């Protein structure tokens, strides 16, 4: 396969490059002609939105890093300087701060989309696993980013979360000292968190690239959860889905801008505008909202190691989900029994989030325990069993069939070609 690429590009300059480095051809193939199921709903916007959000976070982050000082004596003040003195510093920081929340909103919807429509099932297991890796990296990045302003919540959040590792027998304490680079969360900790907070987003970019490559091998899932049977079931990505994604992007940006300009601190905690004090713990430590369900799982059991294992387990169980769900039917649309369990699961996740924000006492401990039990039951018992006993509704013959009367396989011949050109 040595020799110039046979380019179809019209522009001579683009053609000259394309023959030597066929990136224009690749983009044309994967983002313009790319055959995509024609029945996407708006839930299929969220992958593209997540990608845009990642770029926003990296760009604002790079500019914030130009003004931030990762030292315990200066970090808090440098963030205040960004807010008050740096030109448009307030805007860049508020975009970055709320961008983290928007990123998790988008990604959580993206994940629940996958759960509802069975996007994790064969042949997309690896695509799903790469997504879970991205989620883990995002969580680590968000956690370390929250430490950087060196407010009270930064400091005590870092203390509580790094102390999770002390739950492991024998090596736990050494791991924590190693993570800290000292005997408490201090300057060495802040320094390394800044370094890693800058590094991890680029690792995310790398894994996102693999995620997209894997997606372009298997093709997208769709709301019916059946594979396209031919060109009559697909449309080219451009202009159909580029425009649909653009519309979704506008809505997303309106919500984002509303948060940034009208309620920039709504999702944060006032305590983080108090400089870190290693001698005083705030009365009520809570993580950022996107960690609350996991925090509730952590606190659900009175045993320290048990809580830590359950919390890590709640993410790790997602890795094996493709093999836990035994049903061959992807979309919940055709799974009358699984659907209510799914919605129950979604509600439970929200309830866990609420319980995570409440003090760990009284009724909230019970709520967290019931929620945690259901969370794991859903993956480890309900989905494996339902696949065996459920009688799914009949699947449509093809993506076109339910839309076009008398469509389906019969159309595959003559009608297919004009459809593709359209």
């Amino acid at each position: 396969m040595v020799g110039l690429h046979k380019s179809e590009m019209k522009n001579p300059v683009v053609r000259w490059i394309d023959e030597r480095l066929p990136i224009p051809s690749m983009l044309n193939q994967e983002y313009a002609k790319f055959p995509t199921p024609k029945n996407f709903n708006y839930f299929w916007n969220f992958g593209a939105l997540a990608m845009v959000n990642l770029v926003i976070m990296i760009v604002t982050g790079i500019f914030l890093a130009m003004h931030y000082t990762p030292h315990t004596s200066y970090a808090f003040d440098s963030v205040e300087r960004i807010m008050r003195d740096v030109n448009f510093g307030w805007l860049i920081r508020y975009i970055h701060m709320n961008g983290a929340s928007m990123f998790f909103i988008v990604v959580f919807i993206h994940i629940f989309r996958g759960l509802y429509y069975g996007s994790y099932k064969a042949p997309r297991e690896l695509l799903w696993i790469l997504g879970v890796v991205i989620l883990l990296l995002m969580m680590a990045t968000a956690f370390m980013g929250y430490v950087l302003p060196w407010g009270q919540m930064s400091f005590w959040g870092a203390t509580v979360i790094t102390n999770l590792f002390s739950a492991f027998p024998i090596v736990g304490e050494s791991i924590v000292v190693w993570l800290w680079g000292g005997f408490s969360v201090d300057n060495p900790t802040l320094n390394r968190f800044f370094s890693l907070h800058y590094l991890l987003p680029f690792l995310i970019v790398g894994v996102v690239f693999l995620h997209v490559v894997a997606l372009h091998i298997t093709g997208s899932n769709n709301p019916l959860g059946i594979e396209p049977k031919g060109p009559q079931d697909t449309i080219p990505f451009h202009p159909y889905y580029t425009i649909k994604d653009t519309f979704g992007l506008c809505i997303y940006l309106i919500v984002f801008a509303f948060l940034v300009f009208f309620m920039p601190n709504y999702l944060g905690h006032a305590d983080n505008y108090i400089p870190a004090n290693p001698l005083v713990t705030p009365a009520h430590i809570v993580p950022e909202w996107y960690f609350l369900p996991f925090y509730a799982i952590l606190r659900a059991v009175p045993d320290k190691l048990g809580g830590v294992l359950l919390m890590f387990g709640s993410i790790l169980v997602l890795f094996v989900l493709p093999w836990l769900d035994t049903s061959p039917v992807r979309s919940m649309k055709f799974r009358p029994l699984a659907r209510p369990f799914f919605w129950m699961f979604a509600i439970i996740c929200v309830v866990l989030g609420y319980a995570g924000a409440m003090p760990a006492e009284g009724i909230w401990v019970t709520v967290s325990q019931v929620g945690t039990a259901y969370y794991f039951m859903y993956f480890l018992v309900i989905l494996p069993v339902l696949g065996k006993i459920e009688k799914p509704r009949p699947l449509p013959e093809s993506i076109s069939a339910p839309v076009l009367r008398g469509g389906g396989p019969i159309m595959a011949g003559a009608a297919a070609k004009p459809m593709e050109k359209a």
Partner: protein
Amino acid sequence: MADAATAPSTGTAPHGSTGPAETRRDFLKLTTAAMAAVGVGAVVWPFIQSMNPSASVLALASTEVDLAPITEGQSITVMWRGKPVFVRHRTADDIKAANDVALNTLPDPQADGARVQKAEWLVMIGVCTHLGCVPLGQRPTDAKGDFGGWFCPCHGSHYDTSGRIRRGPAPRNLDVPEYTFVNDTNIRIG
């Protein structure tokens, strides 16, 4: 692929192994891989170790406290290794309460005598053994929990007048640091 090609020839060679399963090439591959693993480990180790506490952090590892100004019933907090250390001048009631507990009722059984060098001076690291918050109870106005000692507001651990865990998620008693009485009214922690 290479093994398959070489296996028959070494099998017939005078110094070769007997079966096609083990060849000198396998041995070379294994030793090369083992050396590579050792090499990678040797290169990674300095980087891992660089994240452990540095010499300057370790140099700050001891601190002296003057006990003379602390009146009976009073507590002070000093910083040691970036952590708060609680020093309480215990009253006779505190000591009695700490000694009156049956050890087998404690989650982490430890006699009060094993936690102090002089009964009136309780010195311990003021970090909850659950997830590292600073328990309340140092100031007279603080909540002291149900056992008259300390109370961690984060996840509700109650400590008694000897700093032992009595109720809540914390797995261990508050840690006692290494310290020595330099003289009657001075201690060195660390």
